[in-house]
């Protein structure tokens, strides 16, 4: 297979497809189907890269990257167009394509106005996110990093509900503040490296060996960390997330939780730690502390929520705390656990948001107190709900457990106390999860709501996610194997 432009087509296929949609302004149905077809094609393309793992990368590819594209772009500034795929990117790209398809499917009926635009934005978003996961040039990375904000902003703003404008703007500003400082840091890094080596470049591979004075390294890393921590989100920079999630349309929530949050973690793994190893080590205790605080704090707050989406949003913050912990300690097991946890969180939370969205779509309320006794009314829905809720609470045998457990195993050596606290944090999700299940699924119906059980479309989406959850929960070995090499390269572990 000729893989020379595979990555480029991965990145730009959705965008090109989006442009195609532009010419279908009026014919919403056609646009919808076209968009779905493009997303499916993209997913197929992403999955096909699975089989490229054995491919011999082009010359100049850093170790671990089996697909690699490097072209000059803005030569005057030493900016190159570098895309590369290693195990980490591979999994995340596949996740991105899958979640996009799911986002399209779950909003199939609920979006009634500006349908074409909605799907166009979803596709554009996909391009941006995949770009983030693949770029190995910091300038290119930053470009995609910012690019993915805009579609999300519109998604929340146009199709959201409640205080959607407030939330959209808050989301945009919050993330932008972080990333603008990162831009400065990127520039500084570029200049420092250029001054040292005489070769000005934004390529990650070139920048890796840059030396800093401790203070400089610390400041630069802090800027990177800030950008990623906002996306993560790490407490106390998380307050945009509950708002954004609550007010976003279902597809928006799905993508936000499933993908956007992952970019922060990914950035930290791909750029933050490798570029500034010493600074990262200095700030590790801080990151660990914040991660554990986040796990407990967010899970605790989630218990008090009255709005289902808000609850899931806070739970997201808590779960991403595990990812943060895994990254912070930077041991092979913890890091691969964190990566797997990203994937798991992507699948599980996506499902939960989809489920909440389905309820909202039917009954037009997200207040927990309006529901009750769903098991009697919509058993199929309830089965899936319990399954994903349990996955999210970390029931062994389902996917989240694997990630969390590996993170905790890996981090125990590095941070005893934090891990013990995190273990306490493991129980808190259960507390709010069983509360949610009880109030929603169990008990008696509290209000007569027009509820109907899952349609075939919804069921196939959920069944797919459920299979993924169980598969990863029971047989994570293939995924862990893929992660092994890149993680070993990053952490210096022995695969």
């Amino acid at each position, binding site marked *: 297979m000729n893989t020379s432009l595979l990555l480029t087509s991965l990145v730009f296929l959705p965008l090109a497809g989006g442009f195609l949609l532009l010419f279908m302004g009026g014919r919403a149905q056609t646009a919808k189907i076209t968009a779905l077809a493009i997303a499916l094609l993209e997913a197929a393309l992403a999955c096909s890269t699975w089989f490229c793992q054995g491919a011999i990368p082009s010359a100049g590819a850093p170790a671990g990257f089996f697909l690699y594209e490097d072209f000059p*772009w*803005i*030569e*005057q*500034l030493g900016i190159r167009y570098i895309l590369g795929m290693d195990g980490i990117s591979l999994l995340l790209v596949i996740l991105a394509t899958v979640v996009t398809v799911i986002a399209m499917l779950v909003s199939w009926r609920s979006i009634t106005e*500006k349908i074409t635009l909605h799907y166009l934005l979803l596709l554009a978003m996909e391009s941006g996110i995949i770009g983030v996961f693949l770029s190995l040039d910091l300038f290119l990375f*930053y*470009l995609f990093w*910012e*690019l993915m*904000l*805009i579609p999300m*902003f*519109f998604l929340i*703003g*146009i199709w959201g509900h409640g205080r*959607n*404008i407030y939330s*959209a*703007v808050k989301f*945009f*500003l919050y993330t*932008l*503040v972080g990333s*603008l*400082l990162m*831009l*400065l840091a990127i*520039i*500084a890094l*570029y*200049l420092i490296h250029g001054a040292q080596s005489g070769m000005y470049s934004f390529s990650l591979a070139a920048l890796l060996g840059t030396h800093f004075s401790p203070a400089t390294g610390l400041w630069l890393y802090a800027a990177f960390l800030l950008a990623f921590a906002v996306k993560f989100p790490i407490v106390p920079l998380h307050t945009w997330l509950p708002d954004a999630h609550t007010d976003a349309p279902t597809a928006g929530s799905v993508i936000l939780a499933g993908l956007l949050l992952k970019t922060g973690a990914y950035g930290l793994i791909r750029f933050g730690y490798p570029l500034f190893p010493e600074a990262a080590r200095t700030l590790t205790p801080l990151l660990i502390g914040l991660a554990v605080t986040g796990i407990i704090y967010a899970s605790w707050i989630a218990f008090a929520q009255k709005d289902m989406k808000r609850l899931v949003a806070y739970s997201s913050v808590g779960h991403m705390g595990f990812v943060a912990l895994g990254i912070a300690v930077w041991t092979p097991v913890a890091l691969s656990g964190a990566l797997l946890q990203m994937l798991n969180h992507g699948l599980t939370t996506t499902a939960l948001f989809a489920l909440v969205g389905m309820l909202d779509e039917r009954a037009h309320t997200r207040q927990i107190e309006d529901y009750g006794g769903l098991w009697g009314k919509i058993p199929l829905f309830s089965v899936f709900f319990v399954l994903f809720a349990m996955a999210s609470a970390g029931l062994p045998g389902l996917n989240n457990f694997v990630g969390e457990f590996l993170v905790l195993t890996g981090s125990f050596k590095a941070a005893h106390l934090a891990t013990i606290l995190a273990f306490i944090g493991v129980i808190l999700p259960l507390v709010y999860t069983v509360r949610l299940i009880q109030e929603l699924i169990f008990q008696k119906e509290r209000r007569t709501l027009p509820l109907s059980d899952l349609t075939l479309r919804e069921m196939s989406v959920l069944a797919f996610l459920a299979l993924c959850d169980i598969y990863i929960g029971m047989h994570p070995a293939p995924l862990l194997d893929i992660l092994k090499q890149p993680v070993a390269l990053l952490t210096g572990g022995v695969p």
Partner: protein
Amino acid sequence: MTATDLFIALPIILLAVGALVTLLVGAITRTTNIGIVIALAATLGAAFWLMQSPPTLPAPTLGLSAGGLSRLFGVFFCLLAAGVLCLSVAYNRERGISGEEYPSVLLFTTFGMLALASATNLLTLFLGLEAMSFGFYILVAIDLQRGVSGETGLKYLLPGALSTAFLAFGIALLYTVSGTLSLHELMQFTLTSGTPDPIALAGWGCLLAGLAFKLSLAPAHLWTPDVYQGAPAPVVAFLSGGSKAATILFLLLLLPQAVDVSALRIPLCALSLFSMMIGNCAALRQNHVRRLMAYSSIAQMGYVVLALLSGKSGGYQAAAFYAIAYGTISLAAFGAITVIERNGGGETLDDYRGVGSRQPFAAGVLALSLFALAGIPPTAGFTGKFLIFSAAIRSGEITLAVTGILLTAVSVYYYLRVVVALYFNHADNTEDTQPRSIPTAPEYAVLIAAATTILILGLWPGKLIELLSRA
């Protein structure tokens, strides 16, 4: 006057002649658009001439040259003028601005800009700047049917005249110190290494104060929102894009020649900081779109000053790039505003509600230019900011750079407010009452061209950067 002189001066002459011809033709026939057509021909002709002509030595007798920078900016000014002319056709028709004086004055203004761009001595430079300002004094007040036009004119003219006085006095002082008006020598004498002559510094102070007005730098910025609000939209596009770029060019022709500009660092810092802060903060709650854009332009000029401040480490290229980028974005933004405001559409954010669905094209271009102003990639605005901050960091202006970038983040808020108004807020029942105004073909052309340029400068800025670093 030698052939070389003529060669260099031809575009300028073309514009001047064009202006006169337009006036004459206007006097002869009353055909509506003939003036605009002639003006368009003149600008495009000049642009074409500048583009195809090879670089030459400075003109021996005239104070003119056709170096890389001047040709680049010359082309830019001409194209900008052409764009504004295209935008004006429909706008003027609907606002009742008729007559030949509009295209004629516009050409004259362009003439001033072009003269400024190719100046080699301060006299030409000054005259070019003044010629341009003259044009704008007239242009901003040309819509006499509008009640506020007179006030707009007054608010531009009086500070403008004052700034001219400052400029003239500053130049006079510099001349007194150096004894020459030639740019290069003057700069060598007035901004030497070590402690420069106090009189020269006083001259620079006056000069900068005068230019601060033209660039609408705080605290000489107060006219900006009022004039942006009162003037016809295409004129604002020209004012915002052209006059600012010309003023930046004025500084770009001077400062790089200096031996050491560190004496001016603190004043420039202050101007930059105040402008960024006041511009960005004052726009936050602004409900009038044009005023908002005015404050935004104040802030943007603050960034340019930041670039000029760190000139030697790439700041001059950054400033030049940003001037062009900002000009293009202004053209796109005010072009879109022109289209939106035609047919008596409102000017406040409330009036902009639902425009995204009523006028998707104009709203799209406006949104794009707003994102560009906010510095979101992949737009010209991002590349410009990137270059500016690179230069700032390279020259060690870390504090200012961090402040600037944080203020950029603040600025995003008000740009988003416009986007929010365009797309998120649904107008209440205005869907049916307001007519759908469809952009005319020239407007389409200009907006598409500007938007494309914004994106191209965002994605492939290499060519322009190369041109600038060679100039």
